[in-house]
């Protein structure tokens, strides 16, 4: 049978709606646009990849979301990018950014040393020259071992069982977010079992390592096979992990094994899950105490591809006293690891320019955003601290114990200029 993604190109009527929606094509001539590199170029691809221009697709997926004919434009482009012949240096750089789990496991052993190195301007200059990672790019800081230990020893509490999938970001960079997620769930009668710290495979996939990505997903599907078979929901607070487990494993990597398909059915974005609880009347709304804060909410591009509306926005609206400014901009530019690369950093910053100036104009105290890489980029570019929406729920519930280390934001700000 014809591959579904390739077959979807049959739907393209050249209407150009995707080209209008593409945030990258809008800011640079290096990228010819999603229709051009997607359904149009696809008809010529056979054997060697000859079109490097698809490299500048950030994979934000705006094209697939807006296409009225159901063409899987972004999925085509991710696949085509993986076919581009690469120099050894480029391959090594992409592997360092794509195999986040291995890198984090290593550096996580000595977070202080790793952070000191990554925060050092001279080291970053060398890293840009040697490894092609832009010296100013918002690389995350590794969490102190104390915070990591605190998350992994957190008890799931009493209640209806779910599995919480922490992914790389919570496992190694923001363990306090995991603690907050578990605590907020517990407050609402949900007992979250924490799954092993694994990479979902999305960074590997977007850096062209489909084999590695497929092994990552298959391992998770195997490990979570038992609870998924019992109908236990799997929750992710990282939008990219949720996207990978919900759809991209099948749509991009083409995995159609039963465990992966069942996992896709079971996976929820944490905000979508909490909103669902609320709609069932099971969310403790009364327990939300007022927070008088001006919050700018930005739904990341990956979250939009969940095709579930803006659940975090509806949740934030439940918190008394919060003043919400809703983003009108599509993308912050970072697109996972795209904006970290030396040749794409400026493009990514240009893509996010509209968002950054809108944030500056609305002078919020904090930015809420569901994706970690977007939060890092937003704070890097705007200087405004950024949090996951669940962090605000945690605060509103008056929960305590988990704490975001202050120096995290300070450090990232220092990376500017």
């Amino acid at each position, binding site marked *: *049978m*014809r591959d579904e993604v*390739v*077959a979807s*190109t*049959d*739907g*393209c*009527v*050249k*209407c150009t709606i995707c080209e209008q929606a593409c945030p990258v094509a809008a800011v640079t*001539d*290096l990228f*010819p646009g999603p*229709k*051009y590199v997607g359904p*149009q*170029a*696809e*008809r*010529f*691809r*056979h*054997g*060697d990849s*000859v*079109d*490097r*221009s698809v490299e500048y697709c950030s994979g934000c997926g705006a094209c697939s979301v807006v296409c009225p*004919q159901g063409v899987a434009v972004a999925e085509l482009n991710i696949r085509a990018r993986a076919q581009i012949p690469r120099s050894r240096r480029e391959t090594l750089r992409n592997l360092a950014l794509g195999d986040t789990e291995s890198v984090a496991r290593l550096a996580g052993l000595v977070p202080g040393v790793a952070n000191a190195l990554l925060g050092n301007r001279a080291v970053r200059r060398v890293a840009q020259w040697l490894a092609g990672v832009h010296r100013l790019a918002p690389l995350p800081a590794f969490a102190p071992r104390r915070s990591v230990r605190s998350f992994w020893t957190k008890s799931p509490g009493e209640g209806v069982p779910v599995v919480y999938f922490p992914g790389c970001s919570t496992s190694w960079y923001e363990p306090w977010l995991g603690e907050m997620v578990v605590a907020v769930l517990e407050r609402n009668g949900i007992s979250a079992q924490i799954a092993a710290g694994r990479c979902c495979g999305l960074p590997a996939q977007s850096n062209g390592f489909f084999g590695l990505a497929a092994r990552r997903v298959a391992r998770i599907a195997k490990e979570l096979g038992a609870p998924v078979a019992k109908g236990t929901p799997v929750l992710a607070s990282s939008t990219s992990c949720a996207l990978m487990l919900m759809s991209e494993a099948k749509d991009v990597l083409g995995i159609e094994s039963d465990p992966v398909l069942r996992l896709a059915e079971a996976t929820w974005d944490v905000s979508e899950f909490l909103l669902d609880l609320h709609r069932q009347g099971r969310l403790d709304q009364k327990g939300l105490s007022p927070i008088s804060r001006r919050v700018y909410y930005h739904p990341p591009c990956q979250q939009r591809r969940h095709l579930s509306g803006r659940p975090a926005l509806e949740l934030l609206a439940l918190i008394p006293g919060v003043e919400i400014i809703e983003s009108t901009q599509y993308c912050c530019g970072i697109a996972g690891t795209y904006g970290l690369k030396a040749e794409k950093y400026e493009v990514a910053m240009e893509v996010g320019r509209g968002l950054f100036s809108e944030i500056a104009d609305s002078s919020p105290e904090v930015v809420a955003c569901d994706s970690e890489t977007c939060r890092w980029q937003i704070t890097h570019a705007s200087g405004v601290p950024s949090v996951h929406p669940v962090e605000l729920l945690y605060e509103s519930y008056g929960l305590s114990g988990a704490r975001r280390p202050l120096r995290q934001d300070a450090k990232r700000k220092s990376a500017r200029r």
Partner: protein
Amino acid sequence: MTQALSADVLVIGGGSTGVGVAWEATRRGLSVILAERSNLAGGTSGRFHGLLHSGGRYVVSDPRSASECAAENKALRSIAPQAIEDTGGLFVSLEGDDPAYAEGFPLACERAGVEAVAMSPAEARSAEPAVNPGIQAAFWVPDASVDVWRLLGILSAQAAEGGAKILEHHEVVSFEQEGQRVLGARLKDSATGETRWVSAQVVVNATGAWSGRVAAMAGCEVEILASRGVMVAFADRLSHLAINRCIRPSDGDIVVPIRTVSVIGTTDVAVADPDDTTVAPEEVAAMVAAADQLIPGAGSARTLRAWAGVRPLYRPPGGAGSGATRTVSRAHALVDHATQDGVEAFVTITGGKLTTLRLMAEEAVDLVVAKIGLPATPAFVEALEEKPARPAYFRLPDALAHRESVWGGDRDAVVCECEGVLRSDVVALVAAARGRIGIGDLRRSLRVGMGPCQGGFCSYRCAGLIAEAAQAAEAVTEDLVEFWKERFKGTATVSFGAQARQEILDRWLYASPLAPPGEPVALP
């Protein structure tokens, strides 16, 4: 009447046969004039599926055609590799197909000199993942696909370089005869309406399905069975190998990957009028169903266009035959009307296949040379000498690489998005033609308007570029409307599914924002 012309040979017909004869005659040092009533490949040649036959199709039913195809496949590859994509092909036997045919296939191939390599079904599936997984037997053959406009463009350009005069849009009105000798023909220029007189030592009738009519104008008899075959193009390539069904020749037995599309062919229906290229919706449905058997999923793939070509099947005088077109030989015929009808200096070369055009040309020119009295020279030698060290076959990603090479900033713009045609490509062609060019010519040379949108976007851009270079806006508008009539004719029977959505958008663009000035012209 404009000035008279004269040449050693006047070739009537600018299809693969006629262009081949003009090319061959020029190479042998003869002066040549070729007259074509429309444009090169405007008849049957431009209306086929694009297969350069390995010969495998005919090894059982018509071994002579099979042997000729096998030899000529090699010859054409060395003559015009740029027009050919070396796809390779499979013969596959499906569940329910007569197993005896597949069993006899290798021996029949060997006898006919057709290269065929037996493969296990698993090997065939790995060579072509799109093929029906239920195949029972499979053979690899050296099929290829050929872009006929590019092929005839190469041959006619070489002929023109050697002094041949190629007259498109010139139709024969009458022959000039003195006693029992043909002296030449009167041609009518369809653009100006003027007639011109061409004298020649020998006239070659290479008008394919029309050769009976043309021969009759000289008082000669050629019996042609006109056989219509319907083809359907899909919007994308469904396979990268040609896939033949390993059965006796029948309807819908071949899917050819040609440029960016796949074409399923074909039917075989006797028609009275060689200009009858109508396509019935049931024929389209039958072709799509046949494609779905060879390539599961083809049945729901987007269809782009359907068309019909009319094959010239030659029946020798007094020859037997039930009249069933499938059983008539595909082999070509060379008729010397001096011996058959007593008419001197008039020769008909007809039947055959596009794949065998060189052989047909060689035989025809041998006869011409014998009549004129020049010494014959072996034709093949020179072609072999010209053979490049490594044939530079066309490759599918070439167009993408071409587009990519000029991408970036203001370096160029894409005019035809589906086929990746650049503004510079169009401008160069318009300039070379000194503005005497239509969108249809751009389509044949560059594939403008042959992709999924069928010209919905690029036709207006091309019209603009032509107008910018040379022509009056009114003439360009007229050309644009003609182009659209032709486009919609070919999509009428495939307007369902995704193609229907495309057509609605195309018609809306045509009717409203980009409407030609003046009274709206109704489209089919």
